[in-house]
């Protein structure tokens, strides 16, 4: 069984989508526990690529193909996971009003999914009211707000305030090129991360 787990991990690391799906299906057929596949092969693969990314050994293309293999593997695995095992939590993501940039947020989505979160991505240029509506609809464990520009970043505190009026216990993370820990603190956010992998780590930390 260990060879299948190792194979899944390797397939995700090199971004082999078909191989990942095939090995996940093989593992399930041979009686591997779905949770074991996720926790001992898939999530470690994404942690590994995250480490390589942080150390400068891997770049965004390697991350993107690994995340895609992970996503496709999860599609095979998900129906077999029991409700309580379905992941680390629900994350609602969006880029604030006026900001049409997507890649930073999309990388966070990939890393969150890689860390076992279910992600609802409501896109770019999202008005504050829409964040509140989506929060009400999905009741996420974490709300993630992104901004690439120092001008649009100014809308983050407004969204934090509006969502907290809906739920004072809402867990909110912020990020994006101009965002700093200091700005996150001043905005009233619970968490900040300087990059997508740290964001996934921080999200887990906030929920534990």
């Amino acid at each position: 069984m260990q060879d299948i787990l190792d194979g899944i991990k390797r397939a995700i690391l090199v971004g082999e989508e078909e191989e990942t799906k095939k090995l996940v299906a093989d593992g399930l057929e041979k009686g591997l526990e779905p949770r074991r596949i996720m926790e001992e092969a898939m999530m470690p693969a994404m942690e590994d690529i995250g480490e390589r990314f942080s150390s400068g050994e891997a770049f965004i293309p390697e991350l993107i193909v690994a995340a895609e293999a992970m996503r496709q593997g999860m599609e095979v695995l998900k129906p077999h996971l029991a409700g309580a095992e379905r992941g680390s939590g629900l994350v609602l993501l969006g880029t604030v009003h006026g900001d049409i940039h997507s890649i930073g947020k999309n990388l966070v989505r990939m890393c969150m999914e890689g860390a076992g979160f279910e992600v609802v991505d409501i896109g770019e240029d999202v008005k504050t009211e829409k964040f509140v509506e989506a929060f009400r609809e999905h009741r996420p464990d974490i709300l993630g707000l992104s901004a690439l520009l120092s001008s649009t970043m100014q809308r983050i505190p407004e969204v934090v305030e509006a969502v907290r009026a809906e739920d004072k216990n809402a867990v909110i993370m912020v990020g994006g090129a101009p965002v700093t820990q200091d700005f996150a603190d001043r905005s009233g956010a619970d968490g900040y991360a300087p990059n997508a992998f740290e964001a996934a780590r921080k999200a887990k930390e906030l929920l534990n």
Partner: protein
Amino acid sequence: MTGKERMLAAFSRREPDRVPVWEMAFNEESIIKLGKFYTDDLPPMKFAQQMTVEEKIKLLSTLFTVAKELELDGITAIGLLGTEPVDDEHVRDGWGRVLRVSEEGEATAVGGPVTEPSDLKGLQAYHPQPADFLMLMAAVGNLGTDIAQVLVQPGPFRESWSLLGSMEKLLYHYIKNPGFVKDLAQVATDYILEVVDMAADNGADIIALDGDLAFNQTTLMSPAQYEEYVFPYHQQITEHAHRRGKLIFKHSDGNMWPIMDGIADAGFDGFHPVQPQCMEIGEVKVKYGNRLCILGNIDCTYLLPFGSEEEVAESVKETIRVAAPGGGYIISSSNSIHPGCKPENYIAMVKAAREYGAYPIDIAD
């Protein structure tokens, strides 16, 4: 010296009479806010794409007034590719790319005419039209040849991902389909070479090759991927610009350190904007000051939007002290004068550049 002579001297890494002042871009709102200092004849505050022809002309005329009043040494024109509206938020250009317009920055492709390799065969390449260069022609007509005329054109990386409608898709194919990436880059490059020709024919002195290749942490691709998928196309473009007697520099935000050797080797004459959050300009000057003219570095993320005029002046002074001696430095913001920048701070930046930028530079540590 004229503004153009100053800019060209800096690109030759010689000392002009003073540090040239130039800017890569001003957004509509920034132009109007700056224009208020010099004229009452302003266009309404809206996106250029939503302006009438008369309003667009007024916007350009306001930009030229600002350039004259501030005695800028160079002016940047963008290609004005014709677009048709798709809905309130999107337009379609001549390539068939769907662009999302934004009040806070340039329009970004969200849908392209290419999704897979087989689409390249049937792709109707867009060829630049004279009307695309109307801003350049207007700048030359209004400001003349005493000011350096810069035309900004997205590079092969940005043009490639725009054809796919997503940067992530292009980077995915870096691993999955290298041949497709190279074919796309060549389609983009062939188009860019035509743009360089038309820019040269219409009075451009300098080409700014736009399109970020990095973000705060590192480059978007590895140095090896840059060498394989971007460098050969950069080289084709710089060689072509030089054949046409034009200078060309690379613009990219972010931490470009991993591929800076490649940028210099590809034949670029300069590098912009040395984002201060990611790269230290003194180090760039030491390592590449003998090969590249350095442009930019005055922070437009925090300083120009939120700082005081005194803080702006202090930053200009320090940046000139580090980057200007020996020539090879052109001052500008670390990206553009976007709507978040205080117009007073931009004016303070230009004034400080005049105060501290006279050669020989004599600023104590």
